[in-house]
């Protein structure tokens, strides 16, 4: 191919990469996030078209090649578009995880294809990256699928582990790397097969012991893996675009993983080693229990809300579990129509994925400005008549303020500063962290024991009767 032609292609890749960078940059800020995504898309289109032109220019591709390629693009594109369009907002993390899997898979396939084709004619340097690509790609592929399965509930979200699991993992890793080293020295497809198998199994056994609630972090980590795998693929087929974009994702994904873990004050380390990520094992003890806990009836709660001047709604995982987003929005509208100042307190890790509450409430068309970040709303609780806690537990638990508890150090919503507190949940059941919540024993607190969806409907009804 002519030098200049290649140069142009390279420059397009560079421009595309710059778009990706700018896109991520803009996504650091809610105000510019959407533009960021568009910039990123533009870059991607440019890069793909450039590659297409390059291939045509090379002219080596066979007719079958074209058919295969376009068929693949058609099938993949269709699947991607359909799933992405139809998935429920709250199921997005598992979908992202699936996209992760296929991304990693594709990267691995590129290397496999390259290896199988070149056979023994490849220099050691190249085939190191080839093997890295195969291993990382395969691990991401199986790991991401398991992660998606856990979030989707197809696989138990509880940590699955067995004695000696650690050793098995070590053996698998050793096999992948060891045999990998061997097949670099003396190329063999069987060897490669063993490597792939070991890597795939390792991916499974790496994610299985991790609790469903920790999956967002795991997915983000696997995302970083995929990035690295893609970068390696770039080395293999010597494509700058892949190298830059892959490394970009690898590093930013890593940082992002750390930010996520920090937000739910876990360390990446103890997440990967499993532990209390057990998620929703919180058994719902039926009926109220616990000393000094006072419960309240729908009507009384409705009166408090209707005649309050400022109400803050504190949504939690329970709201998502009950799919009660529309009910809560309806109640809020009702109160606002009575001139009550209503806003939502969004804890960074309320729910089971970052931004869980935002997606949920967005589904019910709650105006974004009503959603207040923790740092912003905490001072306002003191001026609040009623804090309405709906299926939130840990994020309101004052125990976080003193050391020695499972959630110690996690910043919480200062719900207990409000003049009075109404908590809607089904029982005295625990949250994700699996500990009691002192808030419920607070004299200012009254518990409204109900499923969030039903409970909110009742509340709305009784408020209406009040107005009438």
């Amino acid at each position, binding site marked *: 191919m002519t030098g200049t032609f290649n140069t142009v292609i390279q420059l397009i890749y560079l421009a*595309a990469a710059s778009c990706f960078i700018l896109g991520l940059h803009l*996504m*650091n*800020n*809610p*105000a510019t996030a*959407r533009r960021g*995504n568009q910039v990123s898309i533009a870059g991607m289109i440019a890069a*793909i078209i450039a*590659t297409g032109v390059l291939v045509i220019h090379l002219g080596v*591709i066979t007719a*079958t*090649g074209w058919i*295969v*390629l376009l068929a*693949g*693009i058609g*099938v*993949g*594109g269709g699947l*991607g*578009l359909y*799933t*992405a369009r139809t998935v429920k907002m709250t199921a*997005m993390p598992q979908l*992202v995880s699936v*996209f992760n899997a*296929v*991304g990693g*898979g*594709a990267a691995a*396939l*590129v290397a496999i294809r390259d290896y*199988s084709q070149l056979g023994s004619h490849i220099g050691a340097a190249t085939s190191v990256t080839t093997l890295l690509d195969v291993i990382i790609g395969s691990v991401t592929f199986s790991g991401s699928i398991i992660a998606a399965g856990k979030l989707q509930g197809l696989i138990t979200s509880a940590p699955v582990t067995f004695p000696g699991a650690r050793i098995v993992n070590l053996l698998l890793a050793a096999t992948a790397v060891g045999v990998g080293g061997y097949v670099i020295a003396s190329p063999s497809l069987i060897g490669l097969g063993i490597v792939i198998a070991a890597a795939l199994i390792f991916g499974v056994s790496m994610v299985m012991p991790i609790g469903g609630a920790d999956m967002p972090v795991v997915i983000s980590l696997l*995302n970083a893996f*995929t*990035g690295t795998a*893609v970068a390696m693929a770039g080395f293999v087929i010597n*494509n700058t*675009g*892949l190298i*830059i974009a*892959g*490394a*970009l994702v*690898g590093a*930013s*994904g890593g*940082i992002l993983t750390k*930010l*996520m873990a920090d937000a739910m004050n876990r360390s990446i380390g103890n997440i990967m080693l499993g532990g209390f990520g057990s998620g929703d094992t919180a058994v719902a003890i039926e009926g109220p229990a616990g000393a000094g806990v006072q419960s309240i009836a729908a009507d009384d709660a409705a009166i408090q809300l209707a005649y309050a001047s400022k109400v803050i709604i504190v949504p939690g995982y329970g709201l998502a579990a009950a799919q009660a987003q529309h009910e809560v929005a309806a109640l809020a509208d009702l109160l*606002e129509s009575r001139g009550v100042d*209503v806003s939502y307190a969004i804890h*960074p890790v309320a729910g089971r994925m*970052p931004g869980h509450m*935002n*997606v949920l409430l967005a589904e019910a068309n709650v105006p*974004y*400005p009503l959603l207040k*970040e923790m740092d912003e709303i905490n001072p306002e609780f003191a001026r609040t008549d009623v804090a309405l806690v709906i299926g939130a537990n840990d994020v309101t638990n004052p125990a976080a303020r003193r050391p020695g508890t499972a959630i110690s150090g996690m910043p919480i919503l200062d719900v207990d500063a409000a003049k009075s507190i109404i908590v809607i949940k089904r029982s005295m059941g625990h949250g994700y962290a699996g500990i009691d919540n002192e808030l419920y024993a607070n004299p200012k607190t009254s518990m409204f024991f109900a499923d969030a969806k039903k409970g909110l409907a009742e509340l709305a009804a009784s408020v209406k009767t009040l107005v009438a």
Partner: protein
Amino acid sequence: MLLTDFIIFVLSLWVGFEVISKVPATLHTPLMSAANSIHGIVLAGAIVIAATAHNPVGYILAFFAAAFATMNVVGGYVVTGRMLKMFKRRPAPATPAGPPIEPSPNGARGATASGGTANTGASNGAKA
């Protein structure tokens, strides 16, 4: 060639490391999804191996590579777009749009957790 590739790789790592500043937790999932779409660029790799495939095995590998990669890139961007839709702004009925945060003198770049919301808040105010 491998050397310069490596240099490019390391520099890109640095960019990725620096580009994510303090992000409001709300944006963690969209950002993850965005990064996810970006590695869909592996489609370029899939195209290349399709171009050099000449035997059944090659074709099969190429097919799956292309399908996987396209699913990643298309799906990734669409999902991200949907997530970010939740930042669409509609005038806030009751509450004031944002906290009265003093514009910091050199507030030029890099959204901070609160800074981020402040921005949106502000622009809401403008729209409302």
